[in-house]
């Protein structure tokens, strides 16, 4: 099959522009000369197979994408995202989105290969045009689907959403105004990026908010959620879903003396529900349980950071392992994802070099350290 040089060049140029890179920067990182890169982009130069592999490695994409017209990557989605939200997504955050989509693609492949792909059997049919009701009903339906009683608090919502076939990654973003990103990957399906820079409880809310987009906005390819107030009906609906999923009204109504609140009580119930006091105050207000003045009192209370538990960084870990795993989480490498990668390696489905690529590791030493952290051994024998 002859390579369509014009199409190849167009993809290269669009990737570079998406990431706001100069030819010089790409040249420095890849070792391919600027003149050669410019010729490729103009459809005037023929790349070698190695050039294609190097560029695929640099742009974190499947090399087959460069050689065919099929939609193997989320390229069109990121193109839309960066065009629509251009100024608000920094260069670093564009890389972050690209890496997360790469991780989602790998996760989907490993789940499928290891026979662990979740069934994606939860669906919700929207009825009528009242957006908030969609959010309320979908949250209630999902809680029922996952077997949560009214009094039960979802502890590990990341696990909940992964069980629905969503690819959930928490990763530190440069722009603190972005709380999360939802992308529908053409191969992997719904992908959720939660900004790790946010507070642990806010991240829970964001994950639920982005999950709402996956469930209720299936006609959308990309949505960026910002921390600022938003009157967009889809955002209001996603917030309603997140609130009702994490704090069902039936639960809130069972809180003793629903009209009487002080700091200690606000802290206790925010921590019990694992939500911010701000989210709790809004939920109580919308359930008609508190007045405006009490809402203000509750939202000024702060749950101390050390009192908050992160289900993906359990207290049972040693301080060293916890610190190391937190560094991994900030890069998007959840315990679930890393364990899946090592399982594929143990099963000899992937090589150590591919394992390093999948874990965004760039040397033997780092890979060996990571293997040690997970109690794994790299295999070199017969």
């Amino acid at each position: 099959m002859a390579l369509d040089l014009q199409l190849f060049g167009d993809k290269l140029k669009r990737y570079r522009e998406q990431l706001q890179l100069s030819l010089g920067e790409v040249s420095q990182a890849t070792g391919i000369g600027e003149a050669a890169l410019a010729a490729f982009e103009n459809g005037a130069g023929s790349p070698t197979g190695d050039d294609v592999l190097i560029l695929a490695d640099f742009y974190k994409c499947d090399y087959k994408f460069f050689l065919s017209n099929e939609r193997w990557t989320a390229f069109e989605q990121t193109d839309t995202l960066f065009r629509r939200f251009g100024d608000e997504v920094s260069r670093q955050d564009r890389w972050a989105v690209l890496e997360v989509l790469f991780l989602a693609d790998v996760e989907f492949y490993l789940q499928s290969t290891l026979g662990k792909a979740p069934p994606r059997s939860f669906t919700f049919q929207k009825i009528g045009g009242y957006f908030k009701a969609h959010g309320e009903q979908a949250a209630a339906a999902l809680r029922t689907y996952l077997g949560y009683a009214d009094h039960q608090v979802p502890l590990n919502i990341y696990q909940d959403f992964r069980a629905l076939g969503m690819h959930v990654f928490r990763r530190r973003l440069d722009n603190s105004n972005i709380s999360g990103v939802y992308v529908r990957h053409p191969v992997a399906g719904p992908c959720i990026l939660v900004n790790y820079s946010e507070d642990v409880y806010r991240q829970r809310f964001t994950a639920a908010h982005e999950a709402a987009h996956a469930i209720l906005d299936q006609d959308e390819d990309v949505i960026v959620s910002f921390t600022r107030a938003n009157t967009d009906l889809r955002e209001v609906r996603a917030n309603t879903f997140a609130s009702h999923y994490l704090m069902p009204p039936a639960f809130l109504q069972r809180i003793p003396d629903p009209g009487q609140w002080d700091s200690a009580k606000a802290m206790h119930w925010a921590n019990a529900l694992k939500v911010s006091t701000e989210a709790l105050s809004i939920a109580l207000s919308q359930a008609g349980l508190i007045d405006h003045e009490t809402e203000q009192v509750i939202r000024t209370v702060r749950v101390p950071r050390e009192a908050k538990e992160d289900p993906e960084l359990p207290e049972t870990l040693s301080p060293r392992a916890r610190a190391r795993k937190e560094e991994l989480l900030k890069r998007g490498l959840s315990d679930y994802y890393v364990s899946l990668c090592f399982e594929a390696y143990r099963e000899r489905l992937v090589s150590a070099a591919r394992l390093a690529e999948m874990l965004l590791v760039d040397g033997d030493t780092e890979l060996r350290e990571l293997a040690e952290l997970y109690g794994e051994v790299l295999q070199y024998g017969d």
Partner: protein
Amino acid sequence: MAIDPSHFHTLNVADTCAMWNVLSSKLLYQTACSAGCVFSCTAFVAYECLLKPRKEMSSEDEELQTRLRREQENGRFQRYHLDIDDLLEVEILEKRKNLGKGELSSIAFAKRTQQAFHTDDTSARKLASQVIGERHVQTTPHLFGWLYFRQLLGDSDKETIIDEHTSLKRPLRPYFEEMYCRALHYRLMANSGAYRVIET
């Protein structure tokens, strides 16, 4: 199938890990070159070894890079380019999510040029064998064993090679030890006429 140290293809396309392991011991590498072994690599592997930006570089990494650059200046470890068609081979495409890009490129090039693919990773060996056949996939301990089998290394060289290798934090010590014993066993069998060695 267990590695047979009585046979070794002298023309090798090395992946990144194998390249570092071969270069980690000067004695092993020089003896291999004297025995007629030729190691080459693809342009992708050269990029991965020398150009690809890294978060951290250890002194051991720097030493290995220096050795590779020096060898390339001397005309060894030459790098070769793949064709686009090499990447479009069905078996290569099928393995693209199982192997690293360096391994994929090396296997594709070894296949086209009928050389051996040199790798030290167990899974890469297994997956590469499905593409180019088991006999065309070789390891650094295999090379070590073959040099012993050919009596190009002496008993006292073993510790030197292992010390040189481990001083650069490379991981093959137990496999060198194992292969040393296996090579002696094969040589004993060959000397006793249990089987005949056919040079390849």
